[in-house]
């Protein structure tokens, strides 16, 4: 079994996770005996990622910055098979969720996870959640530095940090090391982009106050260039401002995006600057270079072979897959391969235990034992030899994992929605399935090109609908599901918030409305324009007219 270069628990990490697992076992025992009531127990189970959903409990397991080893993937498969119903769901926060665990089994599940250096801590509650990162980290051609060492530093700093255990609201941080944003930085409470300054020195650009939910905001720049050794002091300064001034009286106004926009970014910068100077003076939060180097060493580039670039050719199925699911690697002769978890008509992000085991075998054989979970609910083999691509494609195809649609219109993000989620107002998955079937024809998908559809079943926006080129939001009208259409969102470096078109569509109308919008784009696009570009040029009105069928109506009326 291949051992990838990734962070390994030290004694402290291992002890901390083992102790928490043992504590939770006792807490579950006390709950079942009645020594704890549900009001007392609920915050304890949430601190360990255990929710009560529509049909059953749901366990959310953290995948730190989306990196998994094959041993971890096999363990996830094992848990799905033994403790759940044979599958798991990869989420937009690079985590995995199990939909059917029994409470009595969760302590055993956590022990299984701990054995492969995983846990479910801080996957719920008003704390700093699992830090996410570019899924091409360490492999991307456009990368300045691998963002994962910093993500790991932030994970260690924020895990059970006493000041940040009871924040006004949850807090999500993303890190990217490349100018092309694959980590939706602008939609995070805080985000760090690794940048190079005029002198060629590498440092961090820090963003604050982005978010989705009922009040979407694009993040703003809090620090243009923070020196490496200052990053924790700077982040802690901003967290202190939020902890002191963030609203605790109204959960809908409690995120840092509300505070940032209430104070204004200038004031936010000023206050952060004062706090930062205080922390700097104390000197306790300087990040020693040796420590950053020590953590960075865990993520060292693998021992790549010296190879020439030589992309193999194959049959039509392989060529189609290569076109969308294979990306350039920084190392000659290597490639990045995306495993789509979006088969036409399937459930976005779901993987069966057998598929997870198959992926683990492929990881070991072809990808140095490593994989990434993307926020787009796909898996990514970060380091594969170009010459192995046909064999990888064939192996994936045997497990229905070779859908050639990465980045295309059928590569749809969808939250679990009302099929599983206690908060949802409407189903998301069947809408994704309808749309994927509508656009199943591969030639048509390639003709349409890059088009990101993102679907949420409620205003909380786990399906990132604000950031979709086409976004869909499910709402409840007197117990019946309706779907609002949003156009023009982006979660990339050209981030923007999608605009709501107007009244919602029914469950049976929404796929047709999307098709009419896409057909108008195909008719009106100028050379080289993506859907998003055409929308930005033309605005909402023409798309609105076709979506509600007015133009069609006019045609029929002569």
């Amino acid at each position, binding site marked *: 079994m291949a051992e990838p270069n990734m962070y390994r628990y030290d004694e402290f990490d291992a002890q901390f996770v083992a102790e928490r697992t043992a504590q939770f076992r006792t807490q579950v025992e006390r*709950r*079942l*005996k*009645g020594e704890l*009531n*549900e009001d007392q127990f609920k915050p304890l189970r949430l601190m360990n990622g255990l929710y*009560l*959903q*529509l*049909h*059953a*409990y749901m366990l959310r397991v953290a995948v730190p910055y989306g990196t998994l080893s094959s041993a971890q993937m096999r363990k996830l498969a094992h848990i799905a098979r033994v403790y759940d*119903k044979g599958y798991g769901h990869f989420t937009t926060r690079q985590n995995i969720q199990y939909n*059917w*665990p*029994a*409470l*009595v089994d969760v302590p055993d599940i956590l022990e299984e996870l701990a054995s492969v250096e995983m846990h479910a801590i801080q996957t719920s509650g008003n704390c700093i959640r699992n830090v996410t990162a570019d899924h091409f980290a360490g492999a991307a051609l456009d990368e300045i530095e691998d963002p994962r060492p910093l993500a790991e530093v932030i994970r260690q700093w924020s895990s059970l940090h006493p000041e940040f255990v009871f924040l006004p609201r949850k807090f999500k941080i993303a890190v990217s090391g490349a100018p092309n944003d694959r980590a939706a930085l602008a939609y995070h409470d805080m985000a760090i982009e690794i940048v190079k300054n005029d002198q060629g020195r590498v440092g961090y650009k820090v963003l604050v106050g982005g978010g989705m939910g009922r009040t979407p905001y694009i993040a703003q720049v809090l620090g243009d260039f923070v020196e490496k050794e200052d990053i924790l002091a700077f982040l802690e300064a901003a967290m202190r401002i939020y902890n002191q001034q963030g609203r605790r009286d109204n959960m809908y106004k409690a995120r840092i995006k509300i505070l940032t926009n209430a104070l204004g970014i200038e004031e936010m910068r000023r206050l952060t600057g004062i706090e930062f100077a205080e922390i700097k003076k104390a000197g306790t939060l300087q990040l020693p270079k040796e420590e950053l180097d020590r953590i960075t060493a865990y993520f060292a580039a693998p021992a790549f072979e010296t190879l020439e670039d030589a992309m193999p050719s194959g049959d039509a199925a392989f060529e189609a897959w290569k076109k969308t699911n294979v990306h350039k690697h920084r190392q000659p002769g290597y490639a990045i391969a995306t495993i789509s978890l979006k088969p036409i008509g399937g*459930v976005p992000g779901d993987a069966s235990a057998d598929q997870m085991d198959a992926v683990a075998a492929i990881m070991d054989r072809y990808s140095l034992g490593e994989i990434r979970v993307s926020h787009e609910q796909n898996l990514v083999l970060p380091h594969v030899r170009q010459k192995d691509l046909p064999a990888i494609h064939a192996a994936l195809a045997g497990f229905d994992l070779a859908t050639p649609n990465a980045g295309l219109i059928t590569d749809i993000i969808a939250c679990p929605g*009302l*099929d*599983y989620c206690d908060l*949802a107002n*409407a*189903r998301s*998955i*069947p809408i994704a*399935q309808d749309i994927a079937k509508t656009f199943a024809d591969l030639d048509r998908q390639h003709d349409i090109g890059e088009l990101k559809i993102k679907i949420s079943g409620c205003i909380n926006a786990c399906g990132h609908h604000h950031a979709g080129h086409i976004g869909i939001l499910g709402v*409840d009208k007197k*117990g*019946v*599901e309706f779907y609002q259409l949003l156009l023009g969102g982006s979660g990339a470096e050209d981030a923007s918030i999608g605009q709501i078109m107007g009244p919602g569509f029914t469950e049976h109308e929404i796929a047709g409305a999307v098709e009419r919008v896409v057909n108008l784009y195909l008719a009106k696009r100028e050379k080289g324009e993506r859907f998003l570009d055409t929308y930005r040029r033309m605005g909402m009105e023409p798309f609105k007219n076709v979506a509600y069928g007015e133009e069609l109506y006019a045609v029929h009326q002569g």
Partner: protein
Amino acid sequence: MANPSSQVLTANRLNDGTVLYRKADGWVLTLAEADVYDDKPAAQAALDAATAGLTRNEYVSPYLFEVRRENGVIHPVKEREIIRAAGPSVRADLGKQAQGV
């Protein structure tokens, strides 16, 4: 005729989260077997009894939801409870629907 105020009481089993429906002083696994309360006092009395019984630590989160009866079959009014009573609409092999319920 459907009675607009008919309700059923539901909860989740503590040890595994399974959806439960109230029948007499206990719980059943299927909506079809549940008691339907045709007036608000009866529904409230059932909820009060279930809330008092939370101290037995067998179930959590009891609440009432609206149903209508057609030809003796109980139908939840809202999509949420239809899905909860059956299982995920996208996975007919999972949930109560898979157990032939």
